[in-house]
């Protein structure tokens, strides 16, 4: 405050802010019952720490000190406003807060963070709002950083967050970990939000936006937090899946920004620590009685990640895992992936038969990768004409520039070999 505070105390407060502020915030929401009041209380608490700690020293339990400081500041504020507005229900609110005995047990604090996660990912909020709220309130990113990461205007994003908080307050979305009967469905919603954040970061990583927040890293951090708080097999499976996909980040795009396919990637660029951690998590998740979709996708990623060379990939295992995935979550995209694996195991004509069956059914006709896969099968079978037609269709449907460039390169190579033949 006056420039005389010991540097070490300021540094300690800084460190506590970084590691503890979101936890304290989560507890303050429970105690105060409102996101905005809790946010204000959090800042008041740290302001109070900057004032008191240099004189009195850092308390033995800084988190507990900050929670009660924030709580009392908030109660003061509500009392002042209540007197000003002469609102009786506001006073009732204060009494309710004051009466509540504050628990600082480790369990309660952890529960508060889970409550925050489940509330931010509540299905009564729009998916966009769930993502924005999660990054703002759990990860503590600024509205500007989130807006930039999603290429959205900051006021639009701020509005989205304000509206979501308004719905939480007015429709009374509870600040609770759901009951056991509701948990699987509600957890799905949390996992979907985390994976959405991850994928946004993963696909943006090929773009020119070096200044953007690393959303994949934020998603992995969220995944770790969730696994620590609620070690559900699918949460473990999702964390494994993200780590295994992230392990290939350096290899999946060429220095020129072009996509490099899995079998052409320089495997020495893969992150071994992430592969080891991801594979161990897959084993842990697979120990559950019945594997969910994230776990199975992670298991497939682990088979790829653990093949030292492309030709050592255990395609039979991958075909089997896609078969399991088809059984619990059938979709044309999963079927397409299974066709690719089958073609690697049994040859391109087996794969082509499957892809043609999917397309004949009227599925994936507008999905560029279905045509790209078909083109690749035809090319390997020597049917240049069919391959060319499918590449052209894929290029017409591709939306991202690197993907289009990749397909055009393939088409050009085809023309070259076609001419040579």
């Amino acid at each position, binding site marked *: 405050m006056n420039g005389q505070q010991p540097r070490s105390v300021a540094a300690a407060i800084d460190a506590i802010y970084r590691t503890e502020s979101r936890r304290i915030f989560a507890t303050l929401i429970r105690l105060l019952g409102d996101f905005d009041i809790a946010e204000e209380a959090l800042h008041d608490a740290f302001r109070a720490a900057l004032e008191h700690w240099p004189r009195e020293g850092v308390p033995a339990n800084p988190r507990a000190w900050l929670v009660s400081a924030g709580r009392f500041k908030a109660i003061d504020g509500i009392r002042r406003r209540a007197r000003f507005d002469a609102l009786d229900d506001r006073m009732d609110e204060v009494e309710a807060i004051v009466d509540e005995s504050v628990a600082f047990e480790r369990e309660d604090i952890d529960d508060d963070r889970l409550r925050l996660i489940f509330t931010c990912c509540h299905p*009564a909020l729009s998916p966009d709002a769930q993502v924005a709220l999660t990054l703002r309130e759990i990860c503590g990113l600024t509205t500007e950083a989130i807006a930039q990461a999603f290429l959205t205007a900051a006021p639009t994003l701020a509005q989205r967050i304000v509206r979501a908080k308004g719905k939480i307050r007015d*429709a*009374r979305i509870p600040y609770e970990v759901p009951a056991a009967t509701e948990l699987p469905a509600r957890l799905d919603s949390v996992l979907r939000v985390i994976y959405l954040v991850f994928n946004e970061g993963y696909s943006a990583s090929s773009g020119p936006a070096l200044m953007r927040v690393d959303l994949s890293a934020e998603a992995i951090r969220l995944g770790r937090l969730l696994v620590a708080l609620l070690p559900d097999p699918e949460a473990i499976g999702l964390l494994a899946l993200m780590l295994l996909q992230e392990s290939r980040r350096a290899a999946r795009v060429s220095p020129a920004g072009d996509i490099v396919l899995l079998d052409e990637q320089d495997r020495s660029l893969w992150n071994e620590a992430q592969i080891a951690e991801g594979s161990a998590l897959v084993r842990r998740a697979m120990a559950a009685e019945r594997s969910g979709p994230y776990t199975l996708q992670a298991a497939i990623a682990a088979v790829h990640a653990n093949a030292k060379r492309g030709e050592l990939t255990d395609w039979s295992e991958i075909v089997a895992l896609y078969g399991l995935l088809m059984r619990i979550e059938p979709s044309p995209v999963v079927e397409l992936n299974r066709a690719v694996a089958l073609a690697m195991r049994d040859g391109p004509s087996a794969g082509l038969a499957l892809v043609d069956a999917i397309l004949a059914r009227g599925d994936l006709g507008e999905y560029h990768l279905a045509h790209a896969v078909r083109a690749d099968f035809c090319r390997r079978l020597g049917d240049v004409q069919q391959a060319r037609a499918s590449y052209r269709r894929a290029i017409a449907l591709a939306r991202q520039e690197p993907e289009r460039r990749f397909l055009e390169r393939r088409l050009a190579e085809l023309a070259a070999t076609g001419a040579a033949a």
Partner: protein
Amino acid sequence: MQYLLLCCFDEDRWDKLPETERERIMHEYGKFQHDLAASGQYRAGAKLGSIQTATTLRERAGKPVVTDGPFAETKEHLGGYHLIDCKDLDEAIAIARRIPTLSAGGAVEVRPVESGHQA
């Protein structure tokens, strides 16, 4: 906290349901209301007359205009409502999930009643 559960349904679809199915649904509704009354959460509720009986009022150029039919031109219309007391949205959703027309393609809109305006 009070919530209004608005039960929306496609009337054509309702009319095409077999008689036994309609009876089953109405019986389920009775049970639903009875259970909520027993737990002290039921405030009010009713099944509305068909949309053939609806009349809509608007004001145009300062004059009331009365027209035949419901106000929204959609396939699904409000067919009934329940006003209930719940501790939060999750409880309201859990109760709304038991509304029997859901399994026959209906929708339920859950709306909180503004505090200070509760019945």
